[in-house]
């Protein structure tokens, strides 16, 4: 399946924050049916690279392509409409809306109903049912009427994932989805990722520090270090490569490898 055309690719993208280049000349292609893990020490530029691809940031150099189309100058909403779905590292919800409303807004965006001013929010039964479904698979149904702000950290992370699922994207971008979750909550999330992978045609990008998770899920690993892409390839190979060992050793992350 890796012979298919890339759905998402970056060509020499860089972004500079003042004097600091957070992502430096990174070129990479992502193909459907593949789960790519993006690893690297803290501050390596992983989240920034995600932001460049999903449209939260515009690069200072280079281009981003989505299905062959140059989307470098399109914003996040347009890229979302073209199939990119993003879950954020720092939980990013609508705090004073309920759990159900958070997911419903997502379903509604996909259904293209956002500009409807005349019908009642509560009358779109099919949207509610769909939203309920995504709450069910993320084990959040019980919390549906609670405000997002009132959720525990673990439940907020799950809601973040429920929103990503509700976008029904072709490209899933997870940024440390299990960070800060309790041990018994992690399997729910990993099962979900396994499930998406099993669909076979999705492109999955996963930033993850836990190497056992990476090992069990990844088809491919790319390593970022100081904004540079320093390794790219088969998981076993990449993990054994000296450059990766050094990158992690240098920042005290070796015990994760």
């Amino acid at each position, binding site marked *: 399946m890796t012979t298919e055309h890339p759905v998402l690719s970056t060509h020499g993208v860089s972004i500079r924050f003042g004097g600091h280049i957070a992502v430096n000349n990174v070129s990479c292609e992502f193909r459907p049916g593949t789960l790519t893990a993006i690893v690297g020490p803290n501050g390596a530029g992983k989240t920034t690279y995600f932001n460049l691809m999903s449209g939260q940031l515009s690069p200072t150099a280079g281009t981003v392509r989505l299905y062959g189309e140059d989307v470098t100058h399109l914003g996040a909403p*347009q890229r979302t409409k073209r199939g990119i779905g993003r879950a954020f590292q720092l939980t*990013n919800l*609508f705090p004073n809306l309920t759990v159900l409303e958070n997911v419903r807004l997502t379903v*509604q965006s996909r259904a293209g109903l956002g500009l*409807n001013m005349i019908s009642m*929010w509560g009358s779109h039964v099919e949207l509610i049912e769909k939203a309920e479904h995504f709450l069910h698979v993320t084990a959040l149904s019980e919390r549906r009427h609670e405000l997002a702000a009132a959720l525990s950290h673990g439940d907020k992370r799950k809601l973040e994932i429920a929103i990503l699922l509700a*976008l029904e994207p072709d490209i899933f971008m997870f940024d440390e989805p299990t960070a800060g979750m309790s041990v018994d909550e992690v399997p729910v999330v990993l099962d979900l990722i396994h499930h998406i992978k099993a669909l076979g045609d999705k492109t999955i990008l996963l930033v993850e520090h836990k190497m056992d998770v990476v090992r069990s899920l990844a088809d491919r690993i790319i390593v970022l270090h100081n904004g540079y892409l320093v390794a790219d390839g088969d998981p076993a190979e990449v993990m054994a490569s000296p450059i990766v060992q050094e990158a992690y050793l240098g920042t005290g992350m070796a015990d994760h490898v």
Partner: protein
Amino acid sequence: MIRTLLSRDLPRSRPLSAMLLVVLLGLMLAPFLVSGARSLNVAATICVFVVLVASYDLLLGYTGIVSFAHTMFYGIGAYGVGLALHGMGPSWWAVFVGTAGALSLSLVLALVIGLFSLRVRAIFYAMITLAVASAFSVVASQMSDFTGGEDGRTFKVPEILQPSFRLFDAEILGRVVDGKLITYYLVFFSALALFLFMLRIVNSPFGRVLQAIRENDFRAEALGYRTVIYRTLANCLGALIATLAGVLMALWLRYVGPKTMLSFEVMTDILLIVVIGGMGTIYGAVIGSALFILAQNYLQVLMAQASAAMSGIPFLANLFHPDRWLLWLGVLFVLSVYFFPTGIVGRLRIKALLRGRP
């Protein structure tokens, strides 16, 4: 039926429902409950302010847009219809032309301000609206040949709305059915319809997106909502409804002038009412307007009585002297914000929730 009219956004608190009902019945029956031009004027002003404040709540409370240009749109509506009636004579055609012209001007201004500046940070947007609104009111006063300058313009309304008009000779419940009564009900029912319309908007899929933008615009973008478009639309809707509120006020007063329709005082009144009533509730506009306009009109009377009653104690009598009414209004405002930071409606709803009886 009522649920549908209210777009299933019920008051969700028994005291709040009761208060809303009192205001609704009070305004609906005002011409028969009170006598005197002043009282009816208070009732009509409340009707108009409910619409004006609710349309501002659409921006501030629902979308999180801080705008100081709301009075400008209100003024455009009032001047539009007023100048048309003044220039073209008292016909419905003039009312129509004035209203349509005012709505178009408001729409263009709201679009331009919106598209040029809703991308920038909220504080800059607020500054821009302040600048545009100030410029507009200066221009309106300067063009005195056209607008009547500081004095404003008085004008005649279509015959059926004129105070001297009699629909028929008999009285209903002891009241003659004159043009003033007809105008009052025109204002009342238009306000009611606009209010229900806004309640529907905030409870539509669109309304929920506005709330999402207020909560977290970055996330709303990541979900695929182009927030600039939604903000601009909310801005235009708010502006158009404020324009219609201005039209109603002008028809009621048969006068337009910069002090009543364009001054920054009107803007501060709107801000005070929306905060007292409760932001992001729409219903807050009803409770807030009723209390505020009543206080504005009757606090002085009440204080005069209190002051007279306490004439034996000079200090208290002085404190309650009618000239101090603004001070007391200020005190009431500070107290209400202190005790009800979420506004009266927010407060009542929280109480109902805590009692587990939504």
